[in-house]
């Protein structure tokens, strides 16, 4: 069975500090991968997507970057956090267009 694992579960970080969030998918080869961000109480906004290793497309600019170093791994990062980066970060995968997403359990980030 396929699984999606996000780490860490939660983070409290200082403004200006670096951040790295990870996502690993097991049991599926060559999945399409996505990062979404949800502000507290808000809706979800797609940040990045990747359909193959080494290729990442940015959807919105939030002073974040993403990389896909391996087929099953998707990393979200920044060198300098902003207060506005606080929220809930979700990784998701799908196999093909028009198919539903499977979301990871998410990472809660609080920037202080």
């Amino acid at each position, binding site marked *: 069975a396929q699984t999606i694992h996000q780490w860490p579960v939660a983070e409290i970080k200082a403004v200006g500090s670096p951040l790295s969030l990870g996502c690993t998918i097991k049991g599926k080869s060559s999945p*399409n991968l996505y990062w979404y961000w949800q502000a507290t109480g*808000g*809706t979800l906004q797609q940040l990045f997507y990747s359909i193959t290793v080494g290729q990442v*497309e940015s959807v919105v600019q939030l002073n974040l970057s993403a990389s896909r170093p391996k087929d099953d791994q998707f990393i979200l990062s920044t060198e300098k956090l902003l207060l506005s980066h606080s929220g809930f970060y979700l990784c998701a995968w799908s196999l093909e*267009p*028009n198919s539903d*997403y*499977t979301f990871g359990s998410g990472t809660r980030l609080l920037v202080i």
Partner: protein
Amino acid sequence: AQSVDQPDAHVTLYEGASLELRCSYSYSAAPYLFWYVQYPGQSLQFLLKYITGDAVVKGTKGFEAEFRKSNSSFNLKKSPAHWSDSAKYFCALEGDTGYQNFYFGKGTSLTVIP
């Protein structure tokens, strides 16, 4: 441009009643529509999707949704509602800007009173 509107930020009803959560969309092409549920403190879970075909689609947890092209709606329904249905529900449209970019509505928080 594509968009999804969930006009009701909060819905409260008693257990045993019928629930209907509203969703309308704006999209020039044939829409692919989804419903997801988010329980407190948790991630999103897929409920159902409409791609083509029958206007009523059935999903998990006893939910169904009706696609109405005439008024661009995709309302989520369940009868009877159970207290465990209390959660936030998101309607989503698969758009054409960016690869499989889902446009989510703002969500409807449902409270079912036992």
